[in-house]
């Protein structure tokens, strides 16, 4: 071996990855070569410095949670893009152009999409400002013109003298009514899941939670579960969890709470989930083997001390019964 070969071997050895044969060869050489001994000591010092003062930034839980949340949003857009027409349409351009103000006299800006959700399918799109949309008078378009957005031209045969395109007609709508009104609930549900502004999503969930509606329809419950599990904002997730606690505890809610306990990066949410599960423990659903398995895992591995202690306590209580 040449001296340069030994120097290469030194680099490998100093980084902690050398096999027994290589180590023997190197040790014999180091016994006779002072220059390489010095080199080796220098390389070891470099390695130790790097271990003690790792470069870059610390990939801690906070950064991980932020990265996960931002990725969820990006993934949601990616999924939306895939499900759009042949993936041509930019999902950002498809998002409602205007915001939705709730709790009181709310100026709502959605398009035909909202119209389809809020009103019976047979109702024509509200394109004419001032038109009466509801006999009860609780829903009416505000005095603004319909805006046309997302015009998208479709291919036609070259010989054709017609053109074909799609577009969104966005009409501001004002809506007022009781939280018990299914139409109101549908709008809130839509806002809860689709509004980009987390403040609006939070208000939508809060409106449901504050009113304490105990007999939610299936769609609203599903939306609350989705918000609790997937919303990028911890406040919205927490509020959705609170709203779900006011509903009759069932297997669906239980499974959603377990998923939150397992997956949510926010310890506050996991604490709220385990508390909710504990409160409902004595009910008809009890603690099944799936729940016990998850609790045992949390009792051992959760980063949060309270959750570990609480999980152990729930297991203890459950196994007593």
């Amino acid at each position, binding site marked *: 071996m040449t001296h340069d070969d030994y*120097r*290469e071997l030194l*680099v*490998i050895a*100093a*980084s902690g*990855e050398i096999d027994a044969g290589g180590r023997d060869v190197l040790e014999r050489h180091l016994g006779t070569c002072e220059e390489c001994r010095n080199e080796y000591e*220098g*390389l070891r*010092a*470099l*390695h130790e*410095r*790097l*271990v003690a*003062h*790792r*470069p*870059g*930034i*610390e*990939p801690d839980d906070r*950064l*991980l949670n*932020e*990265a*996960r949340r*931002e*990725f969820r949003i*990006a*993934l949601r857009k*990616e*999924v939306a893009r895939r499900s759009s027409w042949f993936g041509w349409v930019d999902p950002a351009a498809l998002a409602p152009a205007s915001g939705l103000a709730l709790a009181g006299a709310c100026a709502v800006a959605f398009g035909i999409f909202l119209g389809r959700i809020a009103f019976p399918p047979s109702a024509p799109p509200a394109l004419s400002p001032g038109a009466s949309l509801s006999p009860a008078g609780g829903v009416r378009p505000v005095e603004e013109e319909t805006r046309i957005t997302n015009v998208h031209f479709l291919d036609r045969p070259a010989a054709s003298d017609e053109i074909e395109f799609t577009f969104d007609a966005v009409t501001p709508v004002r809506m007022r009514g009781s939280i018990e009104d299914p139409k109101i609930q549908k709008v809130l549900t839509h806002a809860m899941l689709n509004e980009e502004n987390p403040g609006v999503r939070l208000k939508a969930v809060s409106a449901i939670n504050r009113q304490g509606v105990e007999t939610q329809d299936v769609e609203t419950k599903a939306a609350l579960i989705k918000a609790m599990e997937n919303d990028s904002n911890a406040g919205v997730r927490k509020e959705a969890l609170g709203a779900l606690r006011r509903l009759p505890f069932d297997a*669906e809610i239980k*499974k959603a709470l*377990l*998923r939150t306990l*397992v*997956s949510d990066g926010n310890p506050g949410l996991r604490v709220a989930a385990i508390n909710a599960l504990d409160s409902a423990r004595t009910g008809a659903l009890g603690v099944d083997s*799936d729940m016990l*398995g*998850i609790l045992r*895992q949390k009792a051992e591995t959760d980063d949060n001390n309270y959750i570990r202690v609480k999980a152990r306590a729930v297991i203890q209580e459950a196994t007593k019964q």
Partner: protein
Amino acid sequence: MSRDNSQQAYLTMDDADLVRKAQQGDILAFEQLVFRHDKKVLSIAARYVTSADDAKDIYQEVFLRVFRGLKKFRFRSEFSTWVHRITVNVCLTHRSRRRRTMQTVLLDDRNEDDGEAHGEIRDPAGGPDHLAVNADISSRIERALGVLSPKQRMVFTLRHCEGYRLGEIAQMMDCMEGTVKRYLFTATRRMRDQLKDTL
């Protein structure tokens, strides 16, 4: 698998099964794969770049590429190896976008009078300036890493900071182990030159 299935089923499922489910459009299976591998991805990214935003950008880009490419994944390697290879590629590309800035910083710092600080670094006793000294060492290491090429830096941080073996690094970088050794050798020599006053 529907959303109603227990999360525990995903927890106990191996990567290959989760990948198959995710390839069929099961978003929960994909999320489980992300949760399972994202700490390593973030760690590699965070050691490679110098800001939290950059690390998060890399994280996001990696998993979007994984999501987009999942249907084409043919199990010719472990899923984790594939994810790590994407991570390395994204890091190298990201680095190339930022490189000019990093070099400018390095040139600007070249004339610093740092003789006194060197003396403090050699003193392991600590004291009131201990934190400042640590920050100074970290800053010197960052600057020294700035002179490496993207691939040298990647190999160097994967080996010294993340503890990957040379064979694993070769898989991640899609090259021969000998090539990785050469990168490591060159990177180490350059790092020693840059940090000789602090070692």
